[in-house]
């Protein structure tokens, strides 16, 4: 009887844990909606601003580096997917390898974006600019990079968790959230890039 009650309690606890995890995952989705709203506001601001005069607008071809950075972030989404798949199959060492690759790709993406800034800067397209449409390019990419920093921190936390051998279900849950966020950052970049391409 006591054993039965203990088992039932454990079951109920697990049920509440699952419910709470579901809620936390939902929090992440909501947070991403909030983040997207911020970028949606900025792109709307860009449209309103650019429509205010013929001398406004990007008025340049976007640096080719953006193509490479796009390829890198898409690739990093792929490795993240593989890392998540690995942890679900219980292959921790594989998970660690793919996670590490994702982190490195994230850093490469960061570097490429900064590289794109220097290309723009060399063309005379500065952040301080009387055509603020051009300043907006820095705002979009800069705020996205701020999110990338957060994303990399999340990935590092997952990596440290895997190193410390935290319980597998915690590891899977962490990875689940991290991979959703990382894919979101990739999609966000694609949204920004396509938006800029359409307006260049």
């Amino acid at each position: 009887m006591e054993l039965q009650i203990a088992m039932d309690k454990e079951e109920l606890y697990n049920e509440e844990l699952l419910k709470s995890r579901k809620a936390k995952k939902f929090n992440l989705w909501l947070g991403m909606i909030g983040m997207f709203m911020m970028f949606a506001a900025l792109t709307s601001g860009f449209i309103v601003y650019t429509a205010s005069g013929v001398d406004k607008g990007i008025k340049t071809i976007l640096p080719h580096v953006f193509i490479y950075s796009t390829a890198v972030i898409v690739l990093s989404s792929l490795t993240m997917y593989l890392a998540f798949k690995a942890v679900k199959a219980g292959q921790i060492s594989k998970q660690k390898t793919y996670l590490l690759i994702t982190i490195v790709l994230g850093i490469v993406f960061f570097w490429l974006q900064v590289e794109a800034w220097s290309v723009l800067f060399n063309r005379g397209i500065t952040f301080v600019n009387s055509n603020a449409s051009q300043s907006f390019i820095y705002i979009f990419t800069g705020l996205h990079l701020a999110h990338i920093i957060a994303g990399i921190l999340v990935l590092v936390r997952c990596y440290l968790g895997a190193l410390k051998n935290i319980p597998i279900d915690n590891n899977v849950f962490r990875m689940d959230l991290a991979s959703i966020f990382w894919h979101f950052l990739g999609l966000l970049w694609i949204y920004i890039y396509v938006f800029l391409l359409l307006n260049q």
Partner: protein
Amino acid sequence: MSTTVISHDAAHHGSHDHHHETFLTKYIFSQDHKMIAKQFLITGIIMAVFAMILSILFRIQLAWPDEEFPILEVFLGKWAEGGRIRPDFFLSLVTIHGTMMVFFVLTAGLSGTFSNLLIPYQLGARDMASPLMNMLSYWFFFVACVIMIASFFIESGPASAGWTIYPPLSAVPKAIAGSGLGMTLWLISMTLFIASQVLGGVNYISTVLNLRTKGMDLWKMPLTIWAFFLTAIVGLLSFPVLVSAVVLLFFDRSVGTSFYLSDLVVQGTILPNEGGSPILFQHLFWFLGHPEVYIVVMPALGLTSEVISTNSRKPIFGYHAMVYSLVGITVLSFIVWGHHMFVTGMSPFLGGVFMITTLIIAVPSAVKAFNYIATLWRGNIRFTPAMMFAIGMVSFFVSGGLTGLYLGNAALDINLHDTYFVVAHFHLVMGSASIFGMLCGVYHWYPKMFGRMMDERLGYFHFWLTFIGAYLVFFPMHFMGIDGVPRRYYAFTEFPFMEKWVSVNLLITWAAIVSAIGQVAFLWNFFSSIWCGKRAPQNPWNSNTLEWTTPVEHIHGNWPGEIPTVYRWPYDYSKPGNDADFIPQSTPLSQTMSSNLLHDWDGNEAGIEAQKAYNREHNREEEG
């Protein structure tokens, strides 16, 4: 209770989450929604007192523009040299009064307190979806408050471009003293505040959608929860937009970009910024700013719905209509921001579109107002202090809402824009109504928060002084506005046509002072009752919602045993056939056969058959 499954005791629950509860984790860095609610409330009250003192200071200037009050210099130093408030400090006073009241008191103080307190309690949840985020939400808010107050202690003084911080005034640090460091602190404070609101809002939405107890479907949720839920959605979609506006403003101020600035000469110097558009800021600001007023008023509407129904001992009139009105307000709130910008040179066609969307909001708002009145109609009304404040809220919502129809109309707004008419309108419909909603919530849920009762007589005293005071303060402002008196002006003595209003200003200021003194009664009542109030029974108002099924003493996890299951909506008051005039949500239908209607069984065939058999046996007429 019919659904005793397995006891899930609080100790067991606690063993997983709280290993060692210290003073620091219980009272300071608490992750418990009840404690966080109290933290939000007390911080909100402190901010309200601070913002109220600011308003009294500028009211003194408006009532006695030519007189000197040496005591002001004692407290304010150089900002009140010779006993008169300086013009630039006057602007800071109105700016920070507005900012604190709108954001810190009526957004964080109201939503933060009651969403945190009631969402888990009324939905039957152990806590919020993410207690950690909830704690962070409070601490971001706290730091935002500290930074905003700190701006009073810097040499150039606090921000003074108005709570709407329109550029170019706010974007050029050298334009006025208040656009310097004070403005930077304002921006930092607000960024932290937005982080706080988004963290909180995400948690509220997620908790409502994921952590409801068994049986609590969306249509069984109290209207408080609907209001908090929709408020959080509005916040989540609009606050990030303000971040965008603030980020661009920050770069214009500190880096030299030209998002908002163009062709400016400041103090004889031509500024290098070119090509920017200050109207862009207004679009971004009001995309948050207008939904913000619903963020402020919707929780108040939710709280009053609950209090009015409970204290009328009647079901809320038109529960579904109430929910759909809130949904309508939520959706419409995002497509009306242009009505703040009728005078920006907006195309009259676009102005017309914004006018129509704005005026449509009158429909859901009126539905709510009529439903409140219909709920009161022939109710067995108990005039508790909470009920008085709830009725007061409806009064302000109606009297302030009516002038919304005037201001929403572009043809009238172009004349009334930036006059005291606008000040009167929003202080009634948003300021007073929401403050009354908040106070109604404090009086009603105080026993749940502190386990004690507040003093009723002090409550009535507080109500009447505040109610009459608020009308005396804000109602005359309509007439000043119609006469063309602009808001935010330092002294009316410089303009002959305004001189006749000085006497009215005197009345307003005295009314403000008296109602401010009335708040001392509240503060005394609130703080002394924490220790000296009468001990509260478990369900002091004979209410139906789940929070009153929890023990008076707060425990981690809210319910000592299993979480109650919900069987009915929260408004079964004075149900014919039932002995008591309330039936808690956790009472199964099988225990109230004498009052059930057939449709209460919601398609449960066995239940309907049992009910029919019961009805035949007891010669009950079959209804529903």
